[in-house]
């Protein structure tokens, strides 16, 4: 079992991470990855120059580790990897990478989905989009809140 969580200050290569993770998890059978890339436009179609993610390193890392631990407690996964960038991220660059490995694909899919839903709403980051018009602080969307609520609903089943 492995659960790797990293908070990165510069660009990383999702494909290299998948290669490394797959080598580690070759015995697992099913591997799911999610890569989130910085958008080039905001919701109104305005061109973005950067996405800036502020973190508070120790607390941010602990929030990510807590989410990863919960995924291992909840799903039958053998390995997980969660990478998240902080700082200034250019359009098209990877912000977040999540990978899960399991004997059965359903667990791998659900754990990756769960990790992303929680990271998107609960990880300790403050983010703003920068464009020529200035900066705008971003909060979780209604879709993020609804995605997260799916897991709470299942807990009460």
């Amino acid at each position, binding site marked *: 079992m492995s659960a790797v969580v990293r908070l990165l200050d510069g660009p990383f290569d999702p494909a290299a991470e998948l290669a490394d993770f797959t080598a580690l998890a070759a015995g697992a059978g099913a591997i799911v990855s999610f890569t989130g890339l910085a958008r080039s436009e905001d919701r109104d179609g305005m061109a973005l120059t950067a996405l800036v*993610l502020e973190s508070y390193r120790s*607390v941010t890392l602990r929030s990510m580790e807590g989410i990863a631990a919960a995924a291992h407690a909840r799903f039958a996964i053998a390995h997980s990897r969660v990478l998240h960038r902080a700082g200034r991220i250019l359009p098209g660059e990877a912000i977040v990478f999540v990978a899960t490995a399991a004997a059965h694909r359903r667990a791998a899919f659900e754990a990756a989905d769960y990790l992303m839903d929680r*990271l998107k*709403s609960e990880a300790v980051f*403050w983010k703003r989009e920068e464009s020529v018009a200035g900066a705008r602080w971003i909060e979780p969307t209604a879709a*993020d809140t609804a995605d997260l609520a799916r897991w709470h609903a299942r807990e009460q089943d």
Partner: protein
Amino acid sequence: MAEQLALVVELCGKLAEPHGREVTVPLPAAGCTVAELLVRLRDSFPALAPLLASGKVRVCLNETMARDETVVRPGDLAALFPPVSGG
């Protein structure tokens, strides 16, 4: 004299907009509660007041989330967290 010590408070996210990344607030040597700290910050930095008024700003002390009744002392590592955006 009791007020001559001070606490540096880091301001995270949009809280940094009015006054930059950190502010220094006077604090008695014996400290005060987190709830009192927020009142002192409002009084010392009126531009922060509207941001603090939401009641959603949390205080992080020595890398742990603090409660209203937690005591904060000069020299503590303090930060104000607005609601997180998530990753």
